[in-house]
């Protein structure tokens, strides 16, 4: 303090302090005197600090000014009254900007989330493909109505149909067939799989794509023995290091190399994204010409033959899809008539983009609706806050009204203010959207189509702006309407707490609360329905045991069938010999990988109409595959190497006919399909005809699902030597993790088959996880939205109750003094607060049933109006609302009634 004291006062102050201190010591004792001294020092320091500031001010002013001017200067000097000024400013800001702050932040979050979701919807569903006139690109399909379930494979077409369409369908300027293909790059001990497609020569003309380097495919290439190949930009960079002289270079397995003739532009991507179902999810690196032979192969002319090609086409300008479809149908009808089978062929036509995103469509719209509902709740919350604010400041409004402001002007002012807040919130929200979009995309499952085309473009920004305007309007609507219709006189009568203005404001807020409760109920129900559906879906028995097992895809395309037979014979033993592996086997396709390789099968001696011919899935497996997969045998036995016919494989049809019949194992569903009433045990030894060959049943295995949502298919398991597959999935049982075993499994495979790429390796449980990943993602988002909705609704109830009990303090106090018990007060307050919630929930439940019906297609084994979901949801909303009431009501009822009554 000594240091603080200006020189001129120092002596006086310090000496005086000492003097009084001495006196005090005598009067009240040393300790009291010392504490007095300490107090003096503290307060004194503060006063002296002020003096310093005063003096510094004055030094800059006139030394001889009158005290009036000096005081004026002092007042002007911000620094002198800094503390006081700060406090004033803080109070003002807090008063005005708390409301604004809350409004802006919650609107920003709501608008941001909605915009992010919309950008996904826009990128996936609404934006046209990145190709010229992409609206004209169609994918053509055909299906056989007589065969149930054939519609699932509608877009896989037959070469005969393709040729017929190509010749006769004048509504299309070009048609092209596509078939997936791949080859192995031997790469230095690590064979690499390169995926591509074989396409008709006019493929790129149909798409409207131009080459970046070199040229694209042309009709002569279909017969060119040098195998011309067009590569994608991505592959050009990864495999050729963006070599500008790539045209003319060769690539491929030795002895079967292709020659690069051109590079596609970087904007052309053909995997799950741009052209969807065509090459489902795999990146495509090259294109070769699809050489249908000069019509010599019978499979090209059989009408009901090899449905293994995709066909795309470009509509002529001005042609409508319906007309084109009719033309295609006519061509197919003529074609079907020429075939011996008495079946019909019906054409299908869909835009390429629509077909690509068809699976995601419903889910995305559902999510967008969910997030819009949350935004709506936010707006309603804010509207309710506005109403409170107006009610609280009714004197302000009344004075303004009395000063001549018409109610409509006030209403417009409120609307304007809420629009401004919403626009600011919207701008912030767009920033939020950018951030949350990255997060959303980062955790999105890989099989959502076109996800890489999602970005914040002009349409999204426009949507965000429009949304902000709408949000502002919705938020300000109710309070503005109230102001518009109200009489300013109401606001001036402000003595009693129960004015009509208050009551009607309360009613408005109750309606808003009810609306929030209804929205929250609907969202929660939707989340609950989907959640229950998901749970039921994944808790189904899969039929095989995925624990402690790994799977690896092994591609054997580089080998001839005879070579494959040899190495497949050695492969399981090689892998099983690895430390940590208990069993190893393989299958051409695993359960949960969908249905594939569908063939007709006949029971000898049974005559069946062509439409009723049983179709089954064929799998080529190694002995021990059932044990490796954990599929129990129900009857008979597994395949074994001893079932292999002795001697070299047949090289002619005659030899093949002379061989003993092959063996196979049926799945339970297949057995039931073929011999419905016979118990499995009795089926052992029975004969079947598959692809012209007679085979005997040696065992019946339990069912394994091909996909979660469908019933298990009828499967026939043949030994691999019957037709060594070009691609197998290896299964190894081990307690070790996939990461630990990955390199040793690959090494084991390459010891046996050095030219076999192993593109995927992972735990067996990944199969199911990948299959349900989109649903899990969607459910997670929906649960998030629903929780937010519930939280916001609860907050709305909290605010309502807090405000209304604050207003009714006097009334509650009066009731207490007149003898009301705490329980009665509770009932009174809760009834007022929960009545709107209850009616909101009731309305919400009805809406939830309607929504459930809309969602019915997405629900698995759950009724749209399932009480298992609806009842807990209703309870949850009521409980949350009640919980929100607790604190303010408790505080109000506990308050001393006398203070409440007096403080008026």
């Amino acid at each position: 303090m000594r240091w603080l004291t200006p020189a001129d006062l120092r002596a006086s102050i310090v000496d005086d302090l000492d003097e009084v201190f001495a006196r005090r010591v005598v009067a009240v004792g040393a300790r009291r005197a010392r504490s007095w001294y300490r107090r003096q020092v503290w307060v004194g320091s503060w006063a002296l600090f002020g003096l310093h500031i005063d003096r510094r001010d004055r030094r800059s002013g006139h030394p001889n000014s009158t005290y009036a001017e000096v005081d004026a200067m002092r007042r002007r000097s911000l620094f002198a009254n800094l503390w006081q000024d700060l406090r004033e400013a803080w109070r003002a800001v807090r008063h005005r900007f708390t409301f604004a702050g809350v409004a802006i932040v919650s609107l920003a979050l709501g608008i941001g989330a909605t915009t992010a979701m919309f950008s996904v919807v826009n990128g996936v569903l609404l934006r046209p493909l990145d190709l010229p006139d992409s609206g004209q690109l169609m994918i053509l399909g055909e299906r056989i109505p007589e065969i149930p379930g054939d519609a699932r494979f509608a877009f896989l077409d037959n070469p005969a149909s393709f040729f017929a369409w190509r010749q006769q369908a004048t509504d299309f300027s070009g048609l092209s067939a596509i078939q997936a293909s791949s080859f192995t790059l031997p790469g230095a001990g690590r064979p690499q799989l390169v995926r591509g497609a074989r396409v008709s020569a006019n493929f790129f003309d149909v798409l409207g794509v131009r080459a970046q380097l070199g040229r694209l495919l042309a009709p002569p290439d279909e017969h060119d023995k040098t195998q011309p190949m067009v590569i994608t930009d991505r592959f050009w960079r990864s495999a050729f290091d963006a070599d500008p002289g790539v045209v003319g270079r060769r690539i491929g397995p030795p002895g079967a190399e292709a020659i690069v003739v051109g590079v596609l532009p970087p904007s052309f991507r053909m995997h799950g994204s741009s052209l969807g179902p065509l090459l489902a999810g795999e990146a495509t690196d090259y294109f070769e010409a699809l050489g249908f032979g000069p019509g010599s192969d019978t499979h090209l002319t059989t009408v009901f033959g090899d449905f293994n090609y995709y066909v795309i086409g470009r509509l002529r300008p001005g042609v409508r899809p319906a007309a084109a479809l009719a033309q295609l149908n006519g061509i197919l009808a003529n074609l079907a008539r020429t075939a011996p089978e008495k079946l019909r062929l019906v054409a299908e036509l869909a835009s390429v983009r629509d077909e690509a995103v068809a699976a995601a469509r419903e889910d995305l719209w559902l999510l967008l609706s969910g997030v819009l509902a949350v935004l709506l709740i936010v707006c309603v919350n804010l509207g309710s806050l506005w109403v409170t604010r107006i009610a609280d400041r009714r004197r302000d409004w009344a004075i303004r009204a009395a000063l001549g402001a018409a109610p409509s002007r006030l209403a417009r002012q409120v609307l304007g203010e809420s629009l401004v807040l919403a626009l600011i919130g919207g701008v912030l929200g767009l920033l939020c959207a950018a951030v949350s979009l990255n997060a959303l995309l980062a955790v999105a499952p890989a099989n959502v189509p076109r996800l890489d085309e999602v970005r914040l473009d002009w349409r999204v920004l426009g949507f965000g702006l429009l949304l902000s305007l709408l949000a502002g309007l919705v938020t300000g609507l109710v309070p503005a309407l109230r102001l518009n219709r109200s009489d300013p006189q109401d606001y001036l009568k402000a003595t009693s707490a129960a004015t009509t203005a208050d009551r009607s404001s309360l009613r408005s807020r109750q309606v808003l609360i009810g609306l929030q409760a209804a929205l929250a109920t609907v969202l929660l129900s939707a989340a609950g329905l989907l959640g229950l559906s998901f749970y039921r879906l994944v808790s189904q028995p899969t039929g095989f045991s995925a624990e402690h097992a790994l799977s690896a895809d092994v591609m054997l395309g580089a080998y001839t069938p005879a070579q494959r037979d040899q190495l497949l014979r050695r492969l399981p033993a090689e892998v099983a010999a690895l430390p940590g592996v208990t069993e190893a086997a393989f299958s051409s396709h695993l359960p949960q990988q969908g249905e594939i390789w569908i063939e007709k099968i006949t029971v000898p001696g049974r005559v069946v109409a062509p439409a009723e011919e049983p179709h089954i899935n064929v799998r080529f497996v190694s002995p021990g595959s059932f044990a490796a997969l954990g599929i129990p045998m129900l009857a008979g036995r597994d395949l074994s190497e001893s079932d292999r016919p002795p001697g070299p494989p047949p090289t002619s049809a005659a030899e093949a006919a002379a061989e003993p019949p092959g063996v196979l194992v049926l799945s339970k569903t297949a057995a039931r399909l073929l011999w419905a009433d016979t118990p499995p045990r009795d089926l052992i030894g029975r004969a079947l005809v598959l692809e012209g060959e007679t085979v005997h049943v040696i065992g019946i295995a339990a069912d394994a699902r091909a996909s979660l949502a469908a019933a298990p298919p009828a499967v026939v398991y043949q030994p691999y030597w019957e037709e060594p597959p070009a691609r197998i999935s290896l299964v190894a049982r081990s307690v070790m993790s996939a990461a630990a075993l990955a390199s040793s499994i690959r090494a084991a495979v390459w010891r046996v088959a050095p030219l076999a790429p192993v593109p995927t390796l992972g735990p067996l449980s990944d199969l199911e996880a990948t299959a349900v990943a989109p649903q899990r993602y969607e459910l997670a988002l929906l649960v998030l939205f629903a929780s937010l909705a519930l939280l916001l609704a609860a907050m709305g109830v909290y605010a309502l109750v807090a405000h209304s009990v604050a207003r009714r303090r006097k009334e509650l106090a009066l009731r207490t003094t007149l003898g009301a018990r705490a329980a009665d007060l509770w009932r009174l307050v809760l009834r007022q607060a929960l009545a709107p919630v209850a009616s909101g929930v009731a309305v919400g439940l009805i809406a939830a049933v309607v929504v459930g019906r809309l969602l019915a297609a997405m629900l698995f084994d759950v009724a749209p109006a399932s009480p298992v979901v609806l009842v807990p949801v209703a309870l949850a909303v009521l409980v949350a609302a009640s919980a929100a009431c607790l604190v303010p009501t408790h505080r109000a009822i506990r308050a001393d009634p006398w203070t409440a009554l007096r403080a008026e």
Partner: protein
Amino acid sequence: MPSALNRLDVLALLALERLGEDAYGVAVCDDISATTGRDVSIAAVYVALDRLERRGLVRAWSSEPRPERGGRSRRHFAPTAAGQAALRAERALMTRMWRGVTVPGKGSPR
């Protein structure tokens, strides 16, 4: 128009009036304590008196050191004419503000 005096200023001026010649630092502080019934900060009083001096309402001088053991030069204060005028104005203001107001004490019906 003279600007407002704050409370401590008024108390200090009143003390000066009351004490007359003997208005030095400690005495002023004691007087204010006695009047208000509360401890007062010595430094704050000096600051107030300093401010009053700069506004021309008070004049200050240092006295000769007292001829006794521990005696020192003391700072004395006295109100100027302007200071007295300010006090009078202050009293008039108070009177105007309190006119017509009765603050009910204990026992009055309310």
